[in-house]
């Protein structure tokens, strides 16, 4: 019986450890997030996923983007009001609806010393547009007919038709300017990164860290202030929480559930911003009963979005339509929409009109990987019971979930979308009949017309009206049940200064210093 004694001791020790963790943990160790002994300012960040490769043209994973966006730059960029600003192009103009010319900043060099010229711009866009690159940005530039090098500092793009989102897409991180020489030397850009940005790529140790160092010859004087950034891979929320409390990292992202703990700690500051993401329920609109818009509307009316915000996001999420609030001028105030006024009687009426007085049985698919999605599914299940809809929850592992999303083999599916940086992505990409991410089988003539009009209208005010109508129509037809747009959080040591996250650029460290 000796081994049982040993077992008991271990279990007892474990329980004590558990209980010990649960108390108010004020003694969370001194923050040693100061500069390293040599006086170097290295910002250490807890990254919640291992980067999936560093090629800015092909890798959409957030864990990668946050790293390569420091190394690479695009011709243009967007500011916090989603307005275009110069980056590698110091100015641009549009002689006619289908032609754009960019004048490049002079004296910009890549991290390997090569000068950045109009040839590099042409090469980069051609690389994105080439079929074999399989770039995620390829569809952004389908309308580009030719790219012409006018002079070493001037490039001319000719489009096949008017295409309003063009400049927003040029400003995308995925339209980064790369060096042809580096691509040819390495075959691809997955393991290396040579750009023109404020930080240069130093090393990537798999499952451990990625190191960036300051680019001394950066074309803007006094930027960056930091000597380097190190991204430490910490997949587990509790590992990141522990690392930020003990000062092992200077900053990290945490889920809203952990925020009260970080706030209690005097050494830490919590910063948040309204994300461009929103949670949704996708309906397979070809399957009964979801092919009837009345059923979808009934569900929209039965759902309490505030409760989703309160329980799943601890109150830090706002109701959202297809274009979330963080998209500024493009977004409409959905709280005024009829479909967002919870009304059980009306919901039951609509169900009855659709022939489902007694409700029906269905299935809610969700990804087991993301607790917020599982929680949203459970809450919806409970809310829908009130109008007689009995849903069973099916949790899938991430790969299988993506498969289900792609081939539309679901009935209701809980997910989260990012609206991107142009309303064309929020509307056309997800909801036009031939949109690349329209996996719902949704097709509406008016939405298609509006999406097309939005793409070809240059005037901002007119474009805004077009997308306003599209949003209202989508909210009414409810091909997706748009739920809420959550806040995102960064937790940092108090000694990290000059850093403010925004929706368009959550991690801009140009001016950041460690005090």
């Amino acid at each position, binding site marked *: 019986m000796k081994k049982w004694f040993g077992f008991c001791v271990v279990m007892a020790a474990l329980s004590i450890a558990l209980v010990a963790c649960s108390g108010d943990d004020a003694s969370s160790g001194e923050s040693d997030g100061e500069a390293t002994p040599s006086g170097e300012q290295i910002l250490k960040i807890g990254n919640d996923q291992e980067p999936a490769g560093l090629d800015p043209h092909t890798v959409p994973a957030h864990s990668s983007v946050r790293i390569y966006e420091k190394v690479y730059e695009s011709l243009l960029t967007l500011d916090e009001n989603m307005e275009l600003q110069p980056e590698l192009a110091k100015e641009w103009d549009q002689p006619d609806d289908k032609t754009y010319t960019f004048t490049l900043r002079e004296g910009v060099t890549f991290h390997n010393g090569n000068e950045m010229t109009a040839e590099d711009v042409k090469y980069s866009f051609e690389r994105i547009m080439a079929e074999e690159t399989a770039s995620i940005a390829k569809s952004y530039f389908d309308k580009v007919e030719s790219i012409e090098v006018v002079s070493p500092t001037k490039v001319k793009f000719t489009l096949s038709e008017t295409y309003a989102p063009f400049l927003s897409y040029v400003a995308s991180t995925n339209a980064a300017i790369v060096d042809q020489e580096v691509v040819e030397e390495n075959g691809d850009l997955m393991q290396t990164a040579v750009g023109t940005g404020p930080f240069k790529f130093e090393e990537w140790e798999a499952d451990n860290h990625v190191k960036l160092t300051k680019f001394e010859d950066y074309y803007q004087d006094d930027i960056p202030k930091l000597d380097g950034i190190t991204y430490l891979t910490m997949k587990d929320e509790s590992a990141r929480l522990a690392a930020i409390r003990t000062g092992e990292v200077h900053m990290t992202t945490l889920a809203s*559930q952990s925020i009260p703990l970080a706030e209690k700690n005097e050494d830490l500051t919590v910063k948040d911003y309204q994300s461009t993401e929103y949670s949704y329920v996708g309906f397979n609109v070809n399957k009964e009963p979801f092919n009837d818009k009345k059923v979808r509307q009934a569900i929209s009316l039965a759902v309490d979005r505030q409760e989703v915000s309160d329980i799943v996001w601890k109150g830090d999420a706002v109701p959202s339509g297809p274009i979330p609030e963080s998209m500024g001028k493009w977004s409409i105030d959905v709280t005024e929409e009829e479909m967002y006024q919870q009304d059980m009687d009306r919901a039951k009426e609509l169900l009855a009109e659709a022939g489902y007085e007694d409700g029906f049985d269905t299935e809610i698919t969700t990804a087991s990987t993301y607790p917020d999605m599982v929680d949203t599914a459970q809450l919806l299940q409970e809310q829908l019971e009130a109008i007689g809809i009995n849903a069973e929850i099916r949790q899938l592992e991430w790969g299988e979930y993506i498969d289900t999303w792609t081939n539309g083999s679901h009935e209701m599916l809980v997910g989260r979308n990012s609206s991107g940086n142009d309303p064309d992505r929020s509307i056309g990409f997800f909801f036009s009949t031939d949109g690349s991410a329209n996996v719902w089988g949704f097709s509406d003539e008016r939405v298609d017309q509006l999406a097309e009009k939005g793409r070809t209208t240059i005037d901002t005010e007119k474009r805004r009206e077009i997308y306003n109508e599209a949003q209202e129509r989508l909210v009414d037809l409810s091909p997706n049940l748009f739920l809420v747009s959550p806040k995102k959080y960064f937790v940092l040591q108090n000694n990290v200064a000059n850093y403010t996250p925004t929706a368009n650029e959550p991690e801009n460290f140009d001016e950041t210093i460690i005090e």
Partner: protein
Amino acid sequence: MGFMKEIINRLKQDKVGLVGVIGVALVIFIGFIGPFLSPHDPTEMYKSHTLEGPSAAHWFGTDEFGRDIFSRVIEGAKVSLYVGLISVGIGATLGFVFGLVSGFFQGWVDHLIMRIMDILFAFPDILLALTIVAVLGPNLRNTMIAIGIVFTPVFTRTVRAAVISVKEMEFITSAAAIGVKTHKVILRHVSPNILAPFIVQITLALSGAILTEAALSFLGLGIQPPDPSWGSMLNASRQYMEIAPWIAIFPALFIIVTIFCFNLLGDSLRDLLDPKLKS
């Protein structure tokens, strides 16, 4: 049955084993009667009482939806027992048949069966169960099938080894010699004499099955929400471990105690049934 009576008599003298028996009986009691005792519906959300600590209204506190943890733990006991009994039932039945055939006939049948079992054995339990659930789809029934398959090789080996040693004994060879039909030899003479190691294996496998179900549910592949199981409750609690530790502690405690009691019982049964220790 004299056999069972003897076991019970001997258990009475074994204090540690008795703790196991009482513990197991208690878990079974909770599993069957519990749902009638639980103060709340385990899936009912009291949304104005989310993440509340233990109180008179909610003895074990509430979770992020305001569901009563006590009622959920009790409901979870039912799930654990149910999964344990059915999946071990599947594994034990398959294992008994395969082991009997394999051990009695030997030769190529034995080779075929045992090599298949070796292949199954080569995979870690959880990995094999995960794969089976991933292929069949995550729900309670498939979880039980998966665990049953995972436990089949252990039972097959145990039964086969026992059959081989019994088969060579005189009473079997003489039965065969006087012309008793093969199936009668297997059923009447071999089977009853290999029960001891088989029963021990069942008790041990029960705790293994409960643990595997907890692990699968922890990974989101077992029982689907909002129905509770100890493993899925533990998984959901991870986000709130510090703010609301009771969400984690109670299901964890029940897993530990249950596994502990089943193992105690299995351990003393093994001692009791070991012929070498017979006084």
